[in-house]
């Protein structure tokens, strides 16, 4: 697994987690992730979000913001939840493996 691949995996996990905990519109998701990973561009987050959406992990609907125009909101689907759980346990395993080695 190269660095890019690993990052993409983490991004995927983060996006799924964010959409699972709250229904947000695209720009908010991008901002939230780049807030945690400042070196990542918003467009990279968007690209991963778009792919997850294409895979059926999220679904979108048009909603209105509190005081303004309509936005495209994303929410997680059962397929997405399944993937999130799988990824979470995979990362947990990896963290434990690292811990066991004392890293």
């Amino acid at each position, binding site marked *: 697994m190269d660095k890019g691949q690993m990052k993409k995996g983490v991004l995927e996990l983060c996006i799924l987690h964010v959409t699972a905990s709250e229904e947000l519109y695209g*720009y*908010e998701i991008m901002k939230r992730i780049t807030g945690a990973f400042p070196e990542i*561009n918003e*467009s*990279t987050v*968007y690209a991963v979000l*778009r*792919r997850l959406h294409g895979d059926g992990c999220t679904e979108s609907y048009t909603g209105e913001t509190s005081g*303004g*125009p309509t936005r495209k909101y994303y929410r997680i689907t059962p397929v997405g939840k399944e993937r999130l759980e799988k990824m979470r346990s995979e990362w947990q395993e990896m963290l434990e493996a690292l811990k066991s080695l004392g890293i």
Partner: protein
Amino acid sequence: MTKKQYLASLRKYLRFRLSNSEIDDILADMEECFEAGAAEGKSEEEICLSLGEPRSAAASLLSEQTGSERITSLAEVWLPLLLSVALFAVYTYCGFTAEIEKHDLILPIVCILPLFIWILFERKDFFTALAEYKCDFFTFLGSVSMLAAGAMLNEIPKRTFINRYSDVQNYAALMAVFVSAAMLMLAVSLWKNAPKPFSAAPLAGIFFIVYESVRFCRAYDYWNIETDDAYSRSNQAAEIGTSFHNILITIFVCASAFLIWSFIRRNALTLASAYSAMTVTGFMFFWYYTLSALDPTAGDLLYYLEFVITGRNYLIWGGVAAAAVLVLTIIVKLTKLKSRKKVG
């Protein structure tokens, strides 16, 4: 960079690889980001910065959507073109050695075959590919029809004035069919209104038609010159042919370099221009070779002369095409640089 520039740039990088509907969808999402950012009081410049360079944005989108970061694919532009040119050359040679009528209707089929093969290799589902790439496909079909019409245009005056055959109306009808087909295909491709690499091909088709008419006129003039000194005329013709050949190679090599440069710079406009120059010179090059393959001493000397003496026309039209492409590119480059400076 402004929002408009950012979106235009992103479209430019994506258009070779994604369908129009996908690109429109992405751009609509991006536009929403700009709106949301503006609502938070961010400037367009700041939003562009946080989104990241359009090129890297396109690369990550492409890598997620298609599994490859390649912004353009060499094979996508080259394979159908080169195969078509090669097949057209074979067709031309067969047309001169056998009865041309037998090959007239094979031409369009032969020329679109490589595109079919390309679509089948590139995309597994043919109909999805056809729907996604219909703009490219119809423009390509249109250009092939134009080429066929050009071939007919050459035949009509030759058969009327030189051979004095009575079947000229067949050629006129065929030409009308090809021209109407070309117009229809171009209308369909314009309906989607998206610039694509194949859009340069119809231009080549038009050049080819003009070239065919000029070629005929030159040959006809030469035919009418009365002289007994056929040997010296043949020498003169061969000389013109050789110098033409060298210059043509130069143009061809320059166009190739231009094309490679466009790929490296990922410049869609120069890519299209280079593609158009390559198409024009490529056709001339192959045409020239297939014609020179005929033994000059075996056949009618005037028949040979007609091919070689018109080398000048190949040169003129090749030069005009290359110059037009160059001037257009320079103009666009200069205007782009100007607008970039203003923004900076």
